[in-house]
């Protein structure tokens, strides 16, 4: 079915001459134990019909709260004032019953976490049909609503929709659930769609699918869209206008191109400068924004960004600057008293940020000057295999299948280098990592650390090897024991390995300084630190035993962008100072491009492409790598609009039942375009890794360079 077969109202609504949504001086506050939290403080914006407004900000900036206020979905304890006009009608002060007639019919919303956004006990079809029936009771029969929900599911790109409507949410993958939520959101042809971080919880390839779907949804419904995100890349190509929020207020707004090219507020500058760029091959300096966003309970007078701002002057502390039009431009406004000075700077965008914030590129480690082949191998994987049995039966267990989580992978990490391991969730990254950390004899193949094979060591030797290898985990909140002081957290590995007490007491403060924290905070508990600081503590703990290799499992993915840059800079600095080797597991390819020397791309338990970062990113050979790279949005509106995206169809196949031959062929666009005799080769013969260029291997029968950045 094509989109044209589904009937929607004509996009142009007679009442919709003015803005669809007009928010004036919106204030939202919540009661809390430490006083009233002023989550939104005087926010004004508007959305025209068919326009896409991007709202960008870090967690706690009030971007989600302000949209929930539009929907009337804030908890009853929230105090809302100001004005929210939807198609000229005031929404604030209306009863839940009145608002429920608009919600889902005129304004609809797509939420962040698709895994929990659907009621687990009803089928997907019933939930979509409910969205129609609740507004058109009597006018639409149950059977018609059910038929329509099949059409909608088909429209959002779920294959075999007629069957899949009967599925329950748990039978859908994350990406499919988000599609179902979008299907609900467009079911009644709304005039405004609010998407709150719609792709944050999804893999990049699925993110690309969902963004494209949102664009389609906008085309068929002609609705205005508000897209809320913390990722400046996501909105670059999609939004028409952008609003940057900080501490409950808009600090800059204007046309997308203008904000990316000529940001006029230091915070926006910092945000733009803190993002690692996928499309930059030369070493880029990342801008860390020091400090934390302010607490919204008791804001001091003056600009809320002043404590973190590199351009701060005394006048900044006297009064909060209003959002003022930037000289010589229409619709571009910024809340900073030094806007004109920023405008006078020579550099533009991210470069201006580097200049103003004073970011530096970390030095190369000494050891990196020796050619790679002559350096020692710190970690070597040779054809590593890990399988899990699939059992059935409660009393009499029998094996009915095997999950091939890691199906024979090989790579090595040499002294002073960083290898990035990337891939979608479920590709086997974490299993690989756990096998390395386990240091047991693998099911197949070999793991060697500094030349010692894990299959040949006894328990004592294994314990000794652990000194040379440490790990930093993804979630800084969960990876530190909340009941141990920071001192004890960092000292623990040294105690286990029998360091003398004096030695420990000397070393712990040293480690604190090394990761950029003050040693006088050692007696505090993890709960008193922010996410970024806790991740630094985690790094200090990992460095306690002076390892040669640090395994980093998504170390920055749980952090806000401005904090993330600081941690990345720290990791680079430590690598150069201590000559460390990193195995960096991540799904964010921009971060990998920035920090890694080499990159290995995993798909369904296999490494399908490996090589130096510049070679792999600039001239990817494997279709999967090409799709992965093309799916990542670049924070540059001009480039982003020109890019052609390779959209992969469907989800990752089950590793219990991988496709024959080439594992990627079921989703491969190249395979689909081949003549049948060549396709047979993909189906029957598994492609092996072959050298494509200097230090660049790919596993594809028909490997060819395709530039996607």
């Amino acid at each position: 079915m094509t989109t044209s077969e589904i009937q929607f109202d004509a996009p142009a609504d007679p009442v919709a001459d003015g803005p669809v949504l007009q928010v004036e001086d919106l204030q939202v506050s919540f009661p809390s134990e430490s006083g009233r939290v002023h989550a939104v403080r005087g926010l004004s914006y508007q959305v025209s019909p068919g326009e896409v407004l991007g709202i960008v900000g870090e967690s706690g900036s009030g971007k989600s709260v302000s949209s929930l206020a539009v929907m009337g979905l804030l908890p009853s304890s929230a105090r809302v004032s100001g004005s929210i006009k939807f198609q000229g009608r005031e929404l604030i002060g209306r009863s839940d019953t009145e608002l429920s007639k608009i919600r889902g019919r005129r304004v609809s919303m797509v939420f962040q976490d698709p895994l929990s956004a659907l009621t687990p006990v009803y089928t997907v079809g019933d939930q979509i049909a409910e969205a129609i029936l609740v507004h058109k009771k009597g006018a639409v029969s149950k059977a018609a609503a059910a038929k329509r929900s099949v059409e909608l599911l088909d429209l959002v790109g779920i294959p075999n929709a007629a069957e899949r409507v009967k599925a329950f949410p748990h039978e859908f993958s994350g990406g499919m659930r988000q599609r179902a939520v979008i299907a609900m959101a467009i079911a009644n042809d709304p005039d405004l769609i609010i998407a709150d971080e719609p792709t944050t919880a999804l893999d990049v390839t699925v993110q690309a699918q969902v963004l494209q779907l949102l664009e389609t949804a906008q085309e068929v419904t002609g609705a205005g869209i508000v897209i809320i995100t913390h990722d400046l890349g996501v909105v670059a190509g999609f939004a028409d206008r952008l609003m940057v929020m900080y501490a409950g207020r808009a600090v800059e707004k204007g046309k997308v191109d203008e904000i990316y090219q000529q940001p006029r507020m230091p915070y926006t500058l910092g945000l733009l400068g803190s993002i690692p760029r996928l499309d930059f091959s030369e070493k880029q300096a990342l801008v860390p924004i020091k400090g934390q966003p302010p607490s919204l309970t008791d804001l001091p007078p003056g600009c809320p960004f002043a404590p973190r701002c590199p351009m701060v002057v005394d006048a900044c502390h006297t009064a909060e600057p209003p959002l003022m039009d930037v000289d010589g431009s229409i619709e571009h406004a910024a809340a900073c008293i030094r806007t004109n000075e920023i405008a006078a700077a020579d550099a533009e965008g991210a470069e201006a940020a580097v200049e103003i914030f004073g970011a530096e590129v970390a030095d190369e480690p000494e050891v990196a000057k020796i050619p790679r082949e002559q350096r020692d191998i710190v970690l070597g994987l040779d054809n590593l295999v890990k399988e899990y049995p699939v059992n059935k039966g409660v009393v009499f267990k029998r094996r009915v299948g095997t999950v091939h989580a890691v199906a024979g992978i090989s790579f090595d990490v040499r002294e002073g280098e960083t290898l990035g391991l990337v891939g979608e969730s479920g590709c086997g990254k974490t299993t690989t990592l756990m096998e390395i950390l386990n240091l047991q004899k693998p099911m197949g193949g070999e793991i060697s650390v500094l030349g010692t094979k894990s299959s040949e060591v006894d328990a004592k030797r294994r314990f000794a090897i652990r000194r040379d290898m440490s790990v930093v985990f993804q979630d800084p909140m969960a990876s530190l024991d909340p009941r141990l002081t920071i001192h004890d957290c960092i000292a623990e590995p040294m105690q286990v390995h029998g360091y003398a007490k004096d030695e420990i007491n000397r070393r712990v403060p040293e480690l604190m300084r090394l990761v950029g924290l003050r040693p006088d905070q050692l007696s505090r508990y993890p709960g008193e630190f922010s996410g970024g600081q806790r991740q630094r503590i985690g790094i200090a703990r990992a460095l306690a035993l002076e390892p040669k290799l640090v395994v980093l499992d998504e170390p920055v993915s749980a952090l806000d962008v401005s904090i993330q840059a600081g941690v990345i800079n720290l990791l680079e600095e430590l690598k150069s100072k201590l000559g460390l080797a990193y195995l960096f597991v991540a799904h964010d390819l921009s971060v990998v491009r920035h920090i890694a020397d080499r990159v290995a791309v995993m798909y369904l338990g296999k490494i399908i492409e490996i090589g130096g970062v510049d070679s792999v990113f600039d001239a990817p050979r494997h279709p999967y790598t090409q799709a992965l790279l093309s799916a990542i949005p670049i924070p540059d509106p001009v480039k982003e609009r020109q890019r052609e995206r390779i959209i992969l169809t469907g989800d990752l196949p089950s590793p219990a039942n991988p496709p024959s031959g080439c594992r990627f062929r079921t989703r491969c666009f190249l395979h689909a375009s081949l003549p049948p005799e060549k396709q047979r080769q993909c189906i029957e013969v598994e492609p092996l890794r072959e050298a494509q260029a200097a230090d660049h291997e790919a596993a594809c029968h028909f490997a060819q360079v395709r530039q996607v950045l």
Partner: protein
Amino acid sequence: MAGFLLRRLVNYVVLALVATFLAFTLASATFDPIGVLQQRNPPPPAASIEAKKRDLHLDQPIPQRFVTWMSGVVQGDFGRTVADRPITDELGRRIGVSLRLFLLGITFGILFGVLLGVVSAIRQYKFSDYFATLFSFILLSMPVLVLGPLLKMGAQGINDAIGSNVLIFVGETTPGFQGNWFEQLGDRIQHLILPTLAIALGQIAFYSRYQRSSMLDVLGSDFLRTAQAKGLTRRKALFKHGLRTALIPMATLFAFGFGLLVVGGTFTEKIFTWYGMGDWLVVGIGSQDANITATVTLFVAVCVLFSGWLADVLYAALDPRIRVN
């Protein structure tokens, strides 16, 4: 799914047998019905004592006695009491009494318990929530030994105020009551009100606490927000999407609550003079009767295991995530 439930059922039959065997063995080893007989004054003749021993199979070893009794049970004969009356006849009557007493009480308990829990959760930290909490804690800390007499006193007060015996709290029916079926029913309802209340109140207090916390878990969930974003009013979203999901963890509680209460209500039966299963267990132990004890135990085992099975079925019905192929 049907296969799974069938396998469970077979497991339960074995478990019920084991439980009954243990109860029978324990009772047979400790009870001494002949000793009781011998202490009568005047003592019965030796010949009749010997005959009694034979009747009760006391000459056989205990496992063999169990097999003898069990082979009767399989054919629907639960043996005879020490006083030589057939157990089977009384069993049916007593099960009927217990079910009449508890089915209604539990049904009300579940319905109002869930309702009270939901209201408390939705209106958390409001007056009604505090009131419900207080009400529950008072009832939960009050044994039926106290609640029963209190209810009786209250009922007496109401009866005195009206000037007629509306609420009757002794027995199941008025002995020798004559009338058509409608009047008979009215008489039974008059007898039922107080004991039902005694059971239901405790149950309401118990279930409302669990329902409140399971509802609170659901209140902050994303899918409730999605439902409202679709255009459901908060109230409708709460009941259609919230309550349905919050009921899932309650299923086990409901099922086992039912199973245990049917025999755990010994005090309630005693206080309101109903001759049900709980009362019978006390009678059985008092008269040193292994057959009665084993019969009641078998009934308890069947109730508990049936509840477990019912919990599985309820779970599968409520939660699609655990339905197995």
